[in-house]
């Protein structure tokens, strides 16, 4: 009897500990059974919570700071600053990512009002997603007090993104983070393809877009780590029209690894080739998918 009692006590304590520390519990105020995240074991080893390898995705800020140098003109109609409600945790996470990319975009073009409105929208979706704790008072005040300063707007946008990622990692929101990264990635591709508008041969910015194939591979590997969750499986399937364009892009050897001035290591590699038809297909696929979740309210 005592043994049975002990076993029960141990099992329930272990479960409690796993729920408290190991995984994701309540993701959304309005979750459907398919949205229920999977509870994971505590104490994962290495960098990921799903095994010995983990994948990272560059922040949208990284892409837009590089794009800024290309001098593409800002386009007002690409991003919305209107607030919307999303019911499923999948749409909330995708749109959370979408808005982080929008802020990176508007901040890189020094658009104060748009950046501020979208920061408020991000907070609202964060509340719905159950991650309002990422917006603490210090961060909110810092954003509000510096939004009119052109020099610091981009820095604030980048540091806010870093802080959000750190807080989500601290709270072990792995699969939510993977979907957020996907939303941010899709929005970045949508904005970039629409900013470019028309394909031109040998354009550095088209080359930059084609290079996003490598990021796409990491996005897919990142999502695969959580593919047992239905909402992640859905995102992977919805992403297919975009990923199939990227994954089919041809590559050719561009440069070798070598030593540069001062013995500096230079890593060469392949150049990804994007044709006009592939550009147009990517533009259409990213616009369609982006609109499908941005307008899902």
């Amino acid at each position: 009897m005592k043994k049975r009692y002990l076993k029960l006590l141990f099992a329930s304590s272990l479960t409690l500990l796993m729920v408290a520390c190991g995984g994701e519990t309540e993701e959304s105020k309005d979750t459907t059974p398919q949205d229920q995240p999977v509870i994971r074991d505590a104490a994962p080893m290495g960098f990921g919570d799903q095994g010995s390898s983990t994948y990272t995705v560059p922040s949208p800020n990284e892409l837009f700071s590089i794009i800024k140098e290309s001098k593409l003109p800002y386009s007002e109609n690409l991003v919305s600053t209107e607030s919307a409600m999303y019911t499923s945790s999948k749409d909330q996470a995708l749109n959370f990512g979408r808005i982080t990319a929008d802020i990176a975009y508007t901040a890189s073009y020094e658009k104060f009002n748009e950046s501020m409105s979208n920061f408020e929208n991000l907070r609202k979706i964060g509340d719905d997603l159950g991650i309002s704790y990422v917006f603490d008072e210090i961060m909110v005040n810092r954003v509000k007090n510096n939004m009119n300063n052109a020099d610091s707007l981009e820095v604030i946008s980048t540091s806010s993104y870093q802080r959000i990622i750190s807080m989500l990692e601290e709270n072990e929101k792995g699969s939510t983070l993977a979907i957020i990264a996907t939303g941010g990635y899709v929005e970045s591709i949508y904005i970039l393809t629409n900013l470019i508008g028309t394909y031109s041969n040998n354009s550095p910015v088209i080359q930059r877009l084609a290079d996003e194939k490598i990021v796409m591979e990491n996005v897919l590997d990142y999502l695969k780590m959580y593919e047992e969750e239905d909402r992640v499986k859905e995102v992977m399937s919805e992403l297919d029209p975009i990923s199939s364009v990227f994954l089919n892009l041809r590559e050719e050897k561009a440069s070798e690894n070598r030593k540069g001035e001062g013995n500096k290591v230079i890593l060469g590699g392949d150049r990804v080739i994007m044709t006009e038809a592939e550009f147009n297909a990517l533009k259409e696929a990213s616009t369609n998918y982006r609109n499908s979740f941005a307008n899902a309210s």
Partner: protein
Amino acid sequence: MKGMIIRIGLTAVFSGLIALTSIAQDCNNFHKRKCYGSDNPYMRYNTQSKSGMFVLGHTSDLVFVAHAGQDYNISLCQDKKVDEPLKFQVVDGRSQEVLFDNQNAALDVPVDEGADPENTLPLSFEFTADATKKIIIRITAPGPPPEEGSEKKGKREEPNPEDLFCVGVLVENMPTPKLGF
């Protein structure tokens, strides 16, 4: 007597689990607290930086994307309580070619007289990305490899909290400086 044994047993189980969990959470953002990074003031923190919890002998990969036209600096840091240095490789994510191995690179680093060469492995690597690349940072913690069958999907079933420690990977980047006029 039996009750006392049970109480001691339960306390031990809980202490072990709580220690394990608190170490896991302490490792988050370890790189921000402990890794020094580059001296170059133009280098900026990259959000692909990450920390993890390691057990002696454990190997883990961090796969990140390096953009063309950027310089990168990768710096590692580890808990002080681990005396031996980390083994660290930078691997091409596509070809699996080892681009940097700190054990080989250590041969190029002058060793102080009387110092243990094992403790002088370089823990940073700087490179210029000429093309956008998938880069694997492969970290092996010092010590014997985990026993076969003791690992399940990257998680050891019963790690001793004493053997656990944090490892941080700080990634920094900046636009590659243009040379000449």
